[in-house]
């Protein structure tokens, strides 16, 4: 996950100690995904094991500095040069919820969608307010934060559009008499993989 590469990219600027790395990560991502210091040390341990960082000096205050290695620098360049690939089957709580709900008897799926859309729009309103209350960026950490908040705004918008689309899909399939609940299968599955399981990643 990108925490590892992010920390490495920060270390590429110069040696850091744990708390310092945490502060640098927070500052550059607008504290949107706060890390605890335990996660930082765990990540540093693994980076050291993989030869991407190594122990450096200990300063007068007893802070243990870590520095990047040549292999680490190569990894940073690699990360920045390649796309982030979203796995097809990332579990999406909302998609799972709607998929299950649509197969159940006695569920007002239109209501489920409505409740969700209100919540999604509320999120979008709050994000928009936060963004609008912020002046144009004057430093690169503010610019970084603007990119992050825009990403959250566009994700919420996509969710709202998907919900609208689901609502239409649902009413069209209802009109066609399709939206019947799925009863339990009495043909009890054998152990092991179901024959028709879609090969979705872990």
């Amino acid at each position, binding site marked *: 996950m990108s925490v590892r590469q992010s920390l490495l990219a920060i270390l590429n600027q110069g040696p850091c100690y744990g708390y310092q790395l945490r502060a640098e990560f927070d500052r550059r991502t*607008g504290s949107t995904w706060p890390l605890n210091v335990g996660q930082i040390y765990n990540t540093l341990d693994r980076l050291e094991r993989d030869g991407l960082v190594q122990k450096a000096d200990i300063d007068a205050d007893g802070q243990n500095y870590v520095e990047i290695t040549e292999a680490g620098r190569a990894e940073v360049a690699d990360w920045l040069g390649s796309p982030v690939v979203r796995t097809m089957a990332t579990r999406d709580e909302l998609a799972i919820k709607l998929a299950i709900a649509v197969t159940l008897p006695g569920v007002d799926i239109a209501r489920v969608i409505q409740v969700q*859309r209100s919540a999604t*729009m509320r999120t*979008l309103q*709050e*994000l*928009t307010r936060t963004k609008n209350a912020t002046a144009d960026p004057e*430093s690169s950490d503010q610019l970084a934060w603007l990119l992050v908040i825009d990403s959250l705004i566009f994700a919420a918008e996509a969710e*709202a559009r998907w919900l609208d689309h689901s609502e239409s899909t649902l009413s069209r399939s209802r009109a066609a008499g399709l939206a019947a609940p799925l009863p339990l299968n009495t043909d009890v599955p054998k152990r092991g993989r179901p024959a028709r399981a879609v090969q979705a990643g872990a």
Partner: protein
Amino acid sequence: MTASDVLLQLDGVSMQYGHGETAITALAGVDLSVSRGELVAVMGASGSGKSTLLTVAGGLTPPTSGEVIVEGHWLSQLSARELATLRRRSLGFVFQDFNLIPSLTALENVSLPLELDGWSSKKAHHPARDALGIVELTDRAQHFPSDLSGGQQQRVAIARAVVGGRSLILADEPTGALDSMTGELVLRMLRSRVDAGAGGILVTHDARHAAWADRIVFLRDGRIVDESQPSTVSSLLSGLPA
């Protein structure tokens, strides 16, 4: 909130087009109010009744049943003349396609509602200039619509909607014909007019634009099915850079 803060109120408003078998119910028992300083977004699929809601709210067509109250005036109680006056003095419309008059300059377009209300054009130009200032187009006052970009034309339309202190803005897909950044600028202007004490309804199908509103209502088949309003304290983001 005092009664005078409520700029617009729809009480059980229904609207049918046509009669008998072929009648179409465009609005069915809609209750909605808009106060000073409040921007309400209306979302909903095409055909859900959004434009009808605006034309009824703006007194352009009387509802089949229910009551529309603008700044305390019951529209059903007004004569045609009083209604026309109220519309000119209190309401401003903004449409997707800007609706500016091509043969008039930006300044003349903005002055027009005041002139229709009996102002001399000399006298009308003063508040019209102020309104153009609000949308940051003072330097385009003498331009004709054909010399303005889409975003600038829509800003002229917003100036025309608010000129002379009119306080209720009814906007039907005002960003529909604009690119994302330009649309955002137009919204910023609309939002700042509302923050300065106007009230508005913003019809849009763009969730990102609706999110600029204080409240969002969803229409389906002429009914309000849902409302959303943000909590007062943002719980989403733990910190902002200083």
